[in-house]
């Protein structure tokens, strides 16, 4: 922890004196993830690059005043998200608003037994989930499933897509995502759960068709 903190202090000091190697290392480490997050807001790769470039310029300009109240990474991504969000509003991309607290189930209700059944709310025998096959590294099916998941990710509503990207693809923890997106615990969970559930459903459909 101490090492990480002093590393960060050294990085900040390096940026302040214009150390190009320090900046380059930071660019290499964070830019791919930043592009991925930006793509959650804007439609094209070119737009995402512009957003990311703007964020780096804002970092360079802002570093003399950076007080270190958050980590450098959190600060960088919060800049990025603000820029991406403003850009998305200008581009008027799917502007769905707040997630509702109650948004219905994430599994087709027809798969569960009806209220008058002996076991209401339990899986119907013909609709119960089957385990997904194990796919060893590099297996054809595994690669296909990754493609199916990526395509579905693109189709998710913006906020679900951003949360799933940050949590499951980039490995941010829930506290960091909540801080960056300024959303509640419950909202983060709902967005993540709905996004994952939608991806699970297309994977299940794909595997069923493949049989």
């Amino acid at each position, binding site marked *: 922890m101490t090492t990480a903190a002093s590393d960060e202090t050294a990085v900040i000091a390096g940026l302040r004196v214009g150390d190009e190697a320090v900046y380059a290392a930071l660019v290499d480490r964070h830019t791919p993830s930043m592009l991925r997050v930006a793509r959650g807001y804007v439609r094209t790769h070119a737009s995402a690059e512009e957003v990311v470039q703007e964020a780096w310029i804002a970092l360079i300009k802002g570093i003399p005043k950076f007080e270190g109240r958050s980590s450098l990474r959190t600060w960088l991504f919060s800049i990025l998200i603000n820029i991406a969000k403003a850009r998305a509003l200008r581009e008027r991309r799917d502007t769905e608003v707040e997630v509702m607290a109650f948004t219905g189930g994430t599994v087709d209700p027809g798969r569960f037994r009806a209220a008058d059944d002996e076991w209401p709310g339990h899986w119907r025998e013909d609709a119960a989930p089957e*385990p997904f096959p194990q796919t060893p590294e590099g297996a054809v099916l595994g690669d296909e499933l990754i493609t199916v998941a990526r395509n579905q990710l693109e189709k998710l509503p913006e906020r679900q897509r951003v949360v799933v990207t940050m949590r499951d693809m980039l490995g941010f923890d829930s506290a960091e995502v909540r801080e960056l997106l300024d959303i509640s615990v419950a909202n983060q969970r709902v967005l993540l759960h709905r996004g994952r559930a939608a991806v699970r459903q297309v994977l299940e459909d794909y595997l069923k068709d493949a049989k």
Partner: protein
Amino acid sequence: MTGDMDCKELVELVTSYLDGSLDPDTRARVDVHLLECDGCANYLQQFRATVDTLGKVDDETLDPSFRDRLMNAFRDWR
């Protein structure tokens, strides 16, 4: 409601379950249910596999010419 949990309820709690954010009572009800229900155990397995698959979706790559642009932005500012 402290007793049985039905499958329809369980499927909405999976993300919280995996995050370890359920209260102990609810978590225990999920665990008990999972012991008896293959459908839900499979659902949980599918959900874990989904999260795992999402983790393997490629990151964007850093295109060398874009990297040059970012480096130039730094040089221009200094």
